[in-house]
């Protein structure tokens, strides 16, 4: 008995610090945020007058609904584009490169951009896509267009492009890991049983890489859903996303309660996505052993 009590005390001591950290920097701020979302703005102060007016406004006012829908659409487009780009690349590196060293090198090449400042990577697309940008100059020089087009920048296209570029490594990593874990003998076994490479891919490789796809999708979707820098830099007037609304509510509009309510909605959506993907992952978890 005493031994168990002793052990329990020990494990508590070990856990105390991380627990305190989580409590202080995660739970408490979220709780404050949640409390604020029920406050009311009165002049330049926020009154703790608990009501659901902020949430009601989000449902009633179509402009918030529109921003939310646009953000979901952009996040989904970014995730799907990243998937389309990352899967073939991950497949190629995992299966077609036989040298371990070259594989590692290529893997690092995909990951290294993550080490560069996010702001820089977003900003760089401005210099590529802008009216005076690299792409426009190139198109004018080759004679495809006669004068620089403003169509490349400050719209949803440029935003999807930028976000996809920034988040593609998050899609690539889990897919690559999933593909690399698949024993080669499974693929050979499929061929051996008379199944050609295309159908082997559809029946063996793809199903076994679903956990990686799910993880990548979750990362990319949640990251782009909460992004506010890319829309700010390259999104233009039609590219405002929900995170920008939050930012402006806490900033210029000075309506913290409304901003907090929107944040809570974002949090809810993200948590829902993560728990759905977690459930799928659990259901499809496969023991390769």
């Amino acid at each position: 008995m005493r031994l168990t009590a002793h052990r329990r005390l020990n494990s508590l001591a070990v856990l105390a610090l991380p627990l305190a950290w989580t409590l202080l920097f995660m739970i408490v701020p979220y709780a404050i945020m949640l409390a604020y979302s029920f406050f009311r703005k009165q002049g330049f102060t926020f009154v703790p007058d608990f009501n659901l007016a902020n949430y009601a406004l989000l449902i009633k006012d179509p402009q918030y609904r529109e921003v939310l829908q646009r953000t979901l659409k952009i996040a989904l487009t970014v995730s799907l584009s990243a998937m389309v780009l990352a899967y073939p690349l991950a497949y190629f590196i995992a299966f077609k490169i036989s040298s371990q060293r070259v594989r590692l090198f290529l893997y690092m090449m995909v990951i290294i951009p993550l080490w560069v400042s996010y702001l820089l990577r977003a900003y760089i697309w401005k210099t590529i896509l802008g009216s005076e940008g690299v792409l426009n100059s190139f198109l004018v020089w080759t004679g495809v267009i006669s004068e620089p087009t403003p169509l490349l920048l400050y719209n949803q296209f440029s935003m999807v492009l930028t976000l996809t570029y920034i988040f593609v490594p998050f899609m690539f990593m889990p897919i690559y890991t999933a593909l690399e874990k698949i024993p080669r003998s499974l693929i050979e076994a499929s061929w051996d049983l008379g199944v050609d490479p295309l159908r082997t891919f559809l029946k063996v490789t793809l199903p076994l890489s679903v956990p990686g796809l799910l993880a990548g999708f979750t990362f990319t979707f949640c990251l782009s859903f909460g992004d506010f820098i890319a829309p700010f830099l390259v999104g233009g007037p039609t590219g405002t996303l929900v995170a920008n609304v939050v930012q402006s509510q806490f900033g210029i509009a000075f309506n913290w309660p409304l901003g907090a309510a929107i944040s809570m909605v974002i949090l809810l959506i993200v948590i829902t996505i993560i728990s759905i993907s977690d459930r799928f992952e659990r259901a499809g978890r496969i023991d390769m052993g």
Partner: protein
Amino acid sequence: MPILEIEHLTKTFAGDIVAVDDVSFALEEGEFVTLLGPSGCGKTTMLRLIAGFEASDGGRIVLNGRDVTDEPPYRREVNTVFQDYALFPHMTVKDNVGYGLRISGVPRAEVAERVRDALQSVDLVDKADSRPMELSGGQRQRVALARAIIRHPKVLLLDEPLSALDVKLREAMQIELRHLHQKLRITFILVTHDQKEALVMSDRVMVVERGRIVQSGTPTDIYEHPVSPYVADFIGTANIVPATVVGRESGHLVTAVGDARLRAPLGPKGFEASAPVLLAIRPEKLRLSGPKDAKADCLTGTVVETLFQGNSLRLKLAIAGGTPFAVDLPLGAALDEVAPPAIGETVAIAVDPANIVVFDGEVAR
């Protein structure tokens, strides 16, 4: 017509490693053949070339009269039982076994029936709806087997299929595989490094050494008449004793091992006097002779170690020049009656000339 013909098959890997070196053989329908050799000798590569997982650098593979050298694995009428079983973890046992048939468009009802038959032949019908990870090693092995025989391949390739099983189970599966082979009459090619497994299971053993087949024959043939000290030592246990030819005497070769004289069979090759030879002598074909009367056909040695092996007692001796030499003494009904020689004691061993195989001492070195 042979079911499988291999002609001058060659495979070199990067770094000029010759894994398969100009190998040729032919298999008759229904044969059970073993490729036997230590790890890294190229036997698995031979199997992978036949299955089509590796492309050969030269030579031909003719399966059932058709040249399949350049055919991809999914167009060859062979199936493989993989060393790690390679069962699809995301499918049930039933779906694993029926996978190939289902995808090539065999009607659902027929697939179900053939899956049941295949599972029946490996005695695993009750596990049809389990996932591979819920099964034991032996059961996974059976699923892999059922999956490989369901398409009635011309040749079944087995890549060290029993190596992951424990001894008891492995021995049981050896017998079971043999029975399955007798029932199906499919040609089996088994790759193994376990010489006992090869002797127990196969109609024909092909011994592989450094990418070449050095001897091919029935298990008895290989055991009794190895062509080289390598084969003699790899199959079973053999004492390899360096000796010198002294002369000939009434149809025997007389050799000198230190001071002792041993008669050996003449063999097809004539040896000059004073030529160096190697004598291969199996430990179980020896018996102790009367103490110290060093007559002809006798070796003397000092006991270094005695090992109790259950049904026999192995004496490890040092004979002339310190050469290690093993003798297996059968332990009959009464263990107590045998007084094993003590360590340090000098014993005489009688060697029947018929039980010696002579190799050229210069070539073998």
